[in-house]
Every structure is written in structure tokens, then in C-alpha cells.
């Protein structure tokens, strides 16, 4: 009998990458890339002195594109310098939180039994502590340095990432291909990295995007309360707080940093959505 079910590979239609990502996805990636670039090389882009004493709360003009702040500093320069803190700290803590969450989740799923139970209950306990209060305590105890902020945000968001990753990993672990690998004699590390991880990366990317937004908002609100990055350094949350006085007048000094925060979180979600969607369709 001939091998009846062998047919030639249906060659995937060559499509431009841009089409698959969609216009919105590209927009998100572009904005995100822009902010990352600003965070990395921003300080060298600035020509003049950021602390030039100009008019306080000047409106947008050709000299100061986004006006000036409450001390007469150029707002654009402040946002560019703040990008380093907002984007950097948020990205670091999100990656840390999701990475730790995924690792622990895969370990729990591949181990099962008491390890799974202990890990899950321990992280559930962490969830029951109010996040703002935990942040307050951490800052009060260790000061408001960048490493403390990154750790705090990461600790707060590990349990959420763990929960989702564990739910996914447990389902994957029940699959026959994992049983095949077990029967072959593979170790726990192989099961985690080669069998489980590739199958949960897609959904976890989406989760990462959501969690990034939470982290940005947490950091911004901490800064707004004065618990975040300390002056003279300033992230976007601080900028909003500093210039809150002109909010009633619709001053550009308070709207600009708020818009920057919004654009970052929206861009991340657009980018992640289109990337995850593309992965989904590729299956």
C-alpha cells in the first residue's frame, strides 16, 4: 500500500511581515522603540541646559516645545530624562516579575505534590498584602533607590504572573508529549525548558504586556505620592506631581508627562497583542 497521506507541503504564501503585524501593531512597536531609544540615549540628545532659568510654566513655544515646569525647566528635557526611570524601572521589574513567576510555575508544575502546594500557598499569601502598603513599607525600610523600586514592583507582581503561568503549565504538563519525555527518562529541567516553556510563552507574553501596564501605573502612583525616584531625578509620575498646580489651567507641563505614560502603556499593549496574535495564527 502506498503511503497515501503524504502530500507536498503547502508552501506558506509569502506575505510581508508588516501585513501580519497590522498597522496598530506596527504603531505600538514604533512608539515603544522610540521610548526605548529615548531612555537609552536621551541625555545625549539634549542640546541646551535643562535647568535654564526661564519663565515658570511657560506655554509651548519654539524655544520650549512642551513649555517649562514649575521651576522654569524645559519640559521636553525633563520627559526625556524621566524616560530612563519610567521605562527602565518598569521594564526591569516586569521582566523580573514575569520571569520569576514563569520559572517558579514551571518548577511547581513539573514537580507537583508538596512543592507545588507550598509554592502556590506561599505566593497566594503574598497576594493578600495590599500592594501600595507593601511598597510603602519597602521604601520606608530601604529608601527609594532604583534597585529597591525594581525589587518592590517585581515582588508585588510575581504572584499574579505565577498564577497564570502555573495554570498554563499544569495543562501542558498533562499532555502526552510530556509523558513521552518522562518515559524517556528526561530530567525536570528538560521538561520545563523544552516541553513546557515554548507552549506557554505566547500567552505569557500577553500577560507580560498587561503586567507592564500595572507596573508603570504602580510606579507612577508611588512617584506621585513622593515614594518613587527622588529629586532631582524624576520619572514621569514625579513630573505629574510637581506640576499638578497647573492642571486646572490645562497646562502642558502636567498633561505632557501624563500623555507620555499613556502612550507607553498603550504602545506596549498594541505591540504585544499583534505579536501574540501572529503567534496564534502561525499554529
Amino acid at each position, binding site marked *: *500500500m502506498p*503511503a*497515501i*497521506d*503524504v*502530500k507536498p*507541503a*503547502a508552501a506558506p504564501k509569502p506575505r510581508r511581515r508588516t501585513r501580519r503585524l497590522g498597522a496598530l501593531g506596527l504603531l505600538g512597536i514604533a512608539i515603544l522603540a522610540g521610548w526605548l531609544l529615548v531612555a537609552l540615549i536621551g541625555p545625549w540628545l539634549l542640546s541646551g541646559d535643562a535647568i535654564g532659568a526661564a519663565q515658570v510654566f511657560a506655554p509651548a513655544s519654539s524655544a520650549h516645545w512642551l513649555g517649562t515646569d514649575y521651576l522654569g525647566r524645559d519640559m521636553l528635557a525633563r520627559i526625556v530624562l524621566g524616560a530612563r526611570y519610567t521605562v527602565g524601572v518598569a521594564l526591569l521589574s516586569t521582566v523580573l516579575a514575569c520571569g520569576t513567576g514563569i520559572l517558579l510555575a514551571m518548577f511547581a508544575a513539573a514537580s507537583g505534590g508538596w512543592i507545588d502546594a507550598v509554592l502556590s500557598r506561599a505566593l497566594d499569601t503574598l497576594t493578600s498584602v495590599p500592594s501600595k502598603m507593601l511598597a510603602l513599607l519597602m521604601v520606608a525600610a530601604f529608601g527609594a533607590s532604583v534597585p529597591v523600586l525594581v525589587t518592590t514592583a517585581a515582588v508585588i507582581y510575581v504572584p499574579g504572573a505565577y498564577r497564570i503561568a502555573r495554570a498554563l503549565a499544569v495543562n501542558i504538563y498533562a*499532555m*502526552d*508529549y510530556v*509523558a*513521552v519525555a*518522562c*518515559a*524517556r*527518562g*528526561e530530567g525536570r529541567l528538560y521538561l520545563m525548558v*523544552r*516541553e513546557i516553556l*515554548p*507552549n506557554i510563552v505566547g500567552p505569557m507574553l500577553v500577560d507580560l504586556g498587561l503586567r507592564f501596564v500595572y507596573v508603570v501605573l504602580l510606579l507612577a502612583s508611588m512617584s506621585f505620592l513622593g515614594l518613587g525616584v527622588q529629586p532631582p531625578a524624576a520619572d514621569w509620575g514625579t513630573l505629574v506631581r510637581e506640576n499638578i498646580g497647573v492642571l486646572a489651567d490645562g497646562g502642558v507641563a502636567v498633561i505632557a508627562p501624563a500623555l507620555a505614560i499613556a502612550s507607553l502603556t498603550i504602545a506596549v499593549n498594541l505591540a504585544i497583542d499583534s505579536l501574540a496574535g501572529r503567534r496564534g495564527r502561525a*499554529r
Partner: protein
Amino acid sequence: MGASVDVRDLRVVAQSDQDEQVLVEGVSFSMRPGEVLALIGESGSGKTTTALALMGYARPGCRIAGGSIRIGEVEVTALDAAAQRRLRGRTVAYIAQSAAASFNPSRTLMDQVVEPVRIHGLMPREEAERKAVALFRELALPEPERIGARYPHQVSGGQLQRLMAAMAMMADPDVIVLDEPTTALDVTTQIEVLGAFRRVVRERQVTAVYVSHDLAVVAQMADHVLVMRHGRPREYARIEQVLEAPAEAYTRELLAAAHPAPRPSALTPEATAERALLEVRELSAGYGKVDAKGRPEQLILHDIELKLWRGQTIGVIGESGSGKSTLARCIAGLIEPCEGYVLFDNRYLARTVAERTRENLRRIQMVFQIADTALNPAQEIGEILARPLRFYFGLRGAPLRQRVAELLDLVKLPAAVAGRRPGGLSGGQKQRINLARALAAQPDLILCDEVTSALDPVVAAAILDLIAELRRELNLACLFISHDLHTVRALCDEVVVMRHGRKLAQVAREDYARGPHHPYYELLARSVPELRRGWLDEVLAQPHHAA
């Protein structure tokens, strides 16, 4: 009373971003009231799509693009959405393959059975319940007065399937669509359900469309058959004509696959002179909490004894829940037995994978039932096959690639498949990869767990041929687990019959036709549908099945 159905030039397409893909094209048939038409073909042949079109329904992303569907005097394609909703459940009713997935687990059966007539506002609740009880009785359900108060998990699969039929019949539809209604059932249950379905269809004179991939089942139910392949009709004739004088080559292939020919054995007399390759002694296993004596709460396997020689294939047969998969997993070390031993090549095997040597793990390989879940969708085929080669033999570089190509050749797949992911392969191709991965370890024994059950008959026959060929080429011993006695008898040197975790009987190949055997074996043998008209009547006439 049924209605006539007339379908002309039906065309259903799937629409994606830009292009259109034709799912069904050029399908025409007509049925008189009370007739039963079978739509038969492999998965993806468009048979369900055609059947759903009778309700004016196309799955999400698809649409009925052309042709006409007349039920009685009504042109279905011309109805607006509201009129189509009225049509469904009232004029045309649908019985799905998996009743378990179609019932809401948190509501009583009666609530759900009367729901369609309540939604359409056809009759008050009390009247609906009286009618439901009458239908339960007609469908030979136990305790017709009280079964409605139960929840879906409190009845068996076969009963659930009949309850679904009751739900479909509540509104006295003119046409019912039965979509593989017995495929998920055990053979002995299937008989009762088929009998109940046929009685209801005949007595009420409904026009029925029966979708199936199983010609033997169809032969009991249908008047006409429409054979479909790749979305097009291949043959449309009376059932007798299809069975006796099929016009199309594809129909003949289907017929051949329906009664599999015996495959040559790989067992030699010299092999049986040695000690057995695998010996299972008094093996028991189970799940749940372990008591003081080390016995788990729920015993799945009781005192199993089994001997398997090099080159021999033993078929393990039983219905779902009989413990046959658990047996394979115990031998593979995936489940720890609570009592008994497994001897392999004259040595005691450790109980779990973690305690076994890599060499012993290599020599016993397991092939899983559903290739979809047995292949990691995130890995390329090349990697899936390369891993055991690296793991057991430490192969790298060119020899590794060469061996992967050899393995693909062994299971008759082109080398180019190595670069693809499982998602890009058909069901049969995936099962071949599944086999190839087991063979990569150069095992002495393979444990095949229902490897052909999820495949279309023609594809399954090809896989059986492949296994038969490979076991001879490689002198493999094989434990072949299946619920299908036909398949097992065609391939295996001996058949072990299991029920409720116990081994009931063991029958050698030369005794298949000679009896008498254990009554349960006889029952199973009788229950496998045969490819002739009137088989169901004969079986139902026998005292055991008198429903």
C-alpha cells in the same frame, strides 16, 4: 411525520482575510419523507458541513455560498436569521457526536431536554415533561419517570446520547441530523443506542441524515449513502448497491478498510523457545490514597498476568475504563504498581521511570493514542525525532541528521517533513512521526495505546500495515491496546480481554474463529458492527440485547 429534503449544488466556503476556500461543492441529493441518508467520508471530507447546512448553519468563518436547500416547501437559504432560528430545533434537529460536551453539567437533564420546546414556546412545561418521559421510555432509558431529575454526570455515555436524541425529538422535527452519534461509545453500548435511534426514526417517520465514517454502522441505519471526499460527492447510491457493487475506487478502499485483512505475524517458533521478553506477574495498580497495606483507594488493575515473546504482538482489548491504558503505563513505568512485578528480559524492572536505568527505558517505548497531544506543537519534527537519538545514543551533527532522515524514510514520510511543526501535518502523518520517535530508541518492545482509534479507516489501515511491516523488519514485540476487536484480530498473535481491571481471557490467533470463548469475549465479538444489512436486527434479536 417527516418532510422531503432536496439539496441542489450546495456550495459552502470558508472565508479568511483575502482568499476563499471551498469546503463543499456540487453536493446534490434528495430524500423522500422518512428516508435515512448517510453521509460518509474521512475527516475533512465536508460531511458535517453538509449536514449543518440543512439547518441553514455554517460554522463561524464559513458561509453557504450557493445552491438550494429545500425542506418540505421551505427554501432554507432564503430565510432570514430569525426564521432560521425558528427552523432549528423545530423543523430540523441536531444530535451531536459528544453528548457529554453538549449538556450543561450544572442543570438537570429534564431542564435541558425540555428547553428547546420552551424556547420556541411550543408547549407548557408540564406537557413537555410528560412528552419527555414518553420519549425516554421509547428510547429504552432506565427509570423513565425519574431519570430527568438527574444531572449529566449521573448517567452513562450511552444514556446521555439517547437523552440527546430525546431532546432533539421533543419538538417533533421533520428532519433530524445525527452527527457521528455513536462514535465515542463502546461497541456494546453502541448497539443499544443504534437500536433506540432506529426505532424512533422509523416509528415517527422522520427524515434523517446520518453522518458517520463507519460504513458498517451506516449499513444498519441508512437507505441511501452519499460518499464524500475533499468536499465533493464521490458516490450516491442505495446502500445495498454501495455494499455489493461500489462504483468508485475510493468507496472500495473504504469497504476494504472496514474489514481489515489479517497481517502476517512476526512471531517465529524459535522465539517462543526462549524465555519471554516481557513477563507481567500479579500486577495491581490504582489511584488515590494508599491504605496501611499499601493498597490505593481505587484499584484499576487486579492481578494481571501476561507473557510476551520477542516478535510477538499481543492485543489488549476492553471497553473504556477496563484498565488497558493503565496496564501499558505500568509497564512503561509512568504509573507505580502497588503489587506485582514486571520482568523484562529475565530481570526485574524497577517500578518507576525514575528508578529505571536509561538502557531499560530505551528498550521499552510507548506510542500514545492521540498524535495531536503526543507531539509537542512547539517543536519541529526534526527536533522531536532527534531528541531520543541524542538522549540515548549521544548522536550529533551529520550522523544525527542522517538517522532522522532514515527514520522518516522508515515510516514512509519525505525528508522535508523534518522542518515542519506537528500543526502542518495530517493525522496519519502525525501518527507516523509518533511511531518513528518510538523507533528512534531502537526498542525491543513498543506499547501502542489506541494508535489507530483517532484516525480515519483508510489512514488507520495504512498505519496497521506499517506496524506489521516494522515489527517484522525490526523483530519488535508489541503490546497493542485497542477497543476495536477487528483491528486487534487483524494484527495480533494473541488477544487479551480485559474488563473492570481484570484479565478475563486470552485467545490465540488460531482460535479466533473457534469457540467457545469467555462469554464477554463472545459479546464483544458479536458487538462489532458487520458490513452487511440486517446485522443489527440479528444482534438485537439475541436475548442479551433485547432492549
